[in-house]
């Protein structure tokens, strides 16, 4: 049998439910600008009816907590694109520094020094006994050596800067995985308290998105609501409540930091995120640019020295090395040739311009000048080799930039899609606010009505 107090309790229950819904709306509005926040919906259910003999009477509404509106698949897609985007971003940032060293459109740099150097031999050939012309050759040689030295040193400096970023990134990864492990533990201890779990999951996804900027991740959901996170190539990061920290240690051969996971060197296993972009620049592209530069420097040094030894100086003595000879750290490797390039002679009369020991003969100076048109490295002239080196760097940056732009477009679209589903719309929340407010007012009216009825009854009695 229905009772007045039964109706009162239904109305009060409705008041609670609308309060819960209003709280949810208020929470959504408060988090309208919170990154990673997924809007929440109040879960309102019809309360189980009260059976009184033959009739069932509705028992009002239950507030069963809140539910986050989130598309998990979309979140993972965003994470994947984010990995690619940040990989390209960090790679392009590093390589932009590299390409600024080869900015030949300004008319400065190695190619200019190269032209000046060989031209100085041409001018010496015009007047092989002229001391100022000889001095000019030494100056041009020093300028060329300085250009190689600076470019080589700056490449190393860029590499060292990237190396520091690698360590920072590893620290950030460790901080994220520690937090993820803690969250996993909290979620599994909640065991089905969906309201709190939903909030923690927001944090989980937000952390995962952060982590995706740093490194490529593969995610598996466990039954308890926790996440198992590894890299794409299986380096473990988080499993349940445990996180697997990455560590760094100096590689004795390169001098840079290698990355270790549980004792194993995993440096070359990363394929996405900022870390992969940094490692690609540090371990692949820059070493290749540097080695080309070293080979070019060594080619020039060797050719000029060999030709110098063919000739005779102003005193009629056999020519000596013009540049300090290349010291190969290991056979076949010219590493360091650019950074250590230097002119070996300071006395202008020692330049071997003559081919027969006569002071005024210029044939060896001409031969030295003509090294510019001969193959000095890999069958290429110095100019051709250098121009293809610069265009390779340019191509590299331009294709990575293009790719970054297209990934960026996809990412923006995915993020828009995420907002379609999970973003807080103030209009919607305002409409909900009216809805819940009116419902609350109505429930309050019911309470008032029952109050009035019971009061009537009491007075009648």
């Amino acid at each position, binding site marked *: 049998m229905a009772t007045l107090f039964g109706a009162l309790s239904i109305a009060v229950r409705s008041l609670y439910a609308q309060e819960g819904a209003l709280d949810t709306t208020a929470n959504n509005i408060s988090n309208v600008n919170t990154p990673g926040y997924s809007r929440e919906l109040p879960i309102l259910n019809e309360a189980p009816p009260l059976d009184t003999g033959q009739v069932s009477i509705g028992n009002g509404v239950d507030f069963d907590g809140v539910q986050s509106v989130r598309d998990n698949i979309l979140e993972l897609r965003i994470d994947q694109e984010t990995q690619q985007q940040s990989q390209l971003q960090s790679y392009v940032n590093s390589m*932009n520094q590299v*390409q600024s060293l080869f900015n*030949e*459109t300004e008319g400065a740099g190695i*190619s*200019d020094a*190269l*032209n*000046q150097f060989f*031209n100085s031999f*041409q*001018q010496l*050939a*015009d*007047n092989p*006994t002229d001391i100022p012309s000889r001095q000019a050759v030494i100056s041009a040689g020093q300028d060329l050596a300085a250009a190689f030295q600076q470019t080589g040193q700056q490449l190393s400096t860029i590499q060292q800067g990237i190396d520091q970023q690698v360590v920072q990134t590893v620290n950030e990864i460790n901080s994220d995985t520690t937090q993820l492990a803690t969250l996993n533990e909290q979620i599994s201890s909640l065991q089905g308290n969906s309201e709190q779990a939903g909030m923690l999951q927001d944090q989980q996804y937000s952390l995962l998105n952060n982590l995706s900027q740093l490194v490529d991740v593969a995610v598996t959901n466990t039954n308890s609501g926790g996440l198992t996170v590894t890299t794409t190539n299986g380096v473990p990061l988080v499993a349940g409540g445990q996180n697997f920290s990455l560590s760094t240690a100096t590689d004795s051969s390169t001098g840079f930091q290698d990355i270790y996971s549980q004792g194993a060197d995993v440096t070359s296993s990363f394929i996405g995120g900022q870390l992969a972009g940094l490692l690609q620049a540090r371990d692949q592209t820059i070493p290749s640019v540097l080695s080309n530069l070293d080979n070019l420097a060594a080619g020039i040094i060797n050719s000029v020295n060999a030709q110098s030894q063919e000739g005779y100086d102003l005193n009629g003595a056999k020519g000596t090395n013009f540049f300090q000879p290349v010291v190969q750290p290991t056979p076949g490797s010219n590493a360091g040739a650019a950074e250590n390039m230097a002119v070996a002679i300071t006395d202008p009369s020692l330049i071997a311009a*003559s081919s027969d020991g*006569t*002071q*005024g*003969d*210029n*044939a060896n100076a*001409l031969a030295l*000048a*003509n090294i*510019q*048109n001969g193959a000095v490295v890999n069958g290429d002239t110095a*100019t*051709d080799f250098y*121009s*293809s080196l*610069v*265009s*390779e*760097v*340019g*191509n*590299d*940056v*331009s294709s990575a*930039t293009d790719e970054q732009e297209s990934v*960026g477009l996809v990412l*923006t679209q995915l*993020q*828009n*899609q995420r*907002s*379609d*589903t999970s*973003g*807080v*719309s*103030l*209009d*919607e929340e*305002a*409409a909900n*606010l*009216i809805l819940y407010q009116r419902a609350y007012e109505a429930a309050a009216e019911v309470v008032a009505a029952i109050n009035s009825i019971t009061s009537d009854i009491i007075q009648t009695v």
Partner: protein
Amino acid sequence: MRINPDLTRDMLAGLAQDRQQEDQAIQELSTGRKVNQPSDNPAAVAGLIVNNAQTSAVNTYLSNIASLQGSMQEADSTLNSVITSLSQAISLAVEGANGTLNQSDRNALVQEVNGIQQQILGYANQSFQGNYLFAGTAVKTMPFVADSSLSSGVSYAGNTGVNSVEIGDGQAVPTNLPGSQLFTAPGADVFQALADLSSALSSGSNIPAAENEVQNAFNYINAQRTFYGATLSRLNTATTFLNDESLQLSQEQNNLVGADMAAAASQLTQAETALDATLAAGGKVSQYSLLDYLT
């Protein structure tokens, strides 16, 4: 259907794109180049490096030519003086062959011939910017010295070396004739001819033979001198060619990296218009929500 409530992301992406276009246009206009870093157009930058090397080579060839022209002209005009002197010697020989002259007249002619020989010795030791012009490659050694042990009275201390200078890719021109080839060539030795003329005039015999000898030397030097004339004219032709090439290279450079100013200016206007529009739209979009209308 639910609409993405967050319009700022699209707006920011649009703004970034507009700003980038604006930046690029401004950079093109301010530098005058459409390629400002290798990634802007890697192929053009590679072409530019090769172009710079060629331009620099052309400039060097032009400067080689300029410095070569000086010494060539000096040598040419020196030889012209030698020829003038030799033709004077021939006139003296003709005069000396005249039977009406007595010994003292001929002695006066001998003095003149000896004077001419000294003059030519001076010409043969002519230097240009501190280098002897006719010493072969031994440019610091005075090439012709008086030597009484020889019948010609002059010996050659230079060498037979010939230097070359490049005036184009793979094009080298010889820059000198060794003095031994010019002045002491067998059969046309200038100093020998003048010494013979001098002794013929002193003795009064064999004057026509000596005259003939001087005439030979005169013809020979005249023929050799064309080397300088021909080289100078070759240098002039090369200069014209190199100036053309320099012009072409600078046009090519402009094609590679030069900005089309009109296009850049209109791109700038377009980018600015787009930027204004996006900003105006963005300013309107997020001003209101339903909350503003609830009281």
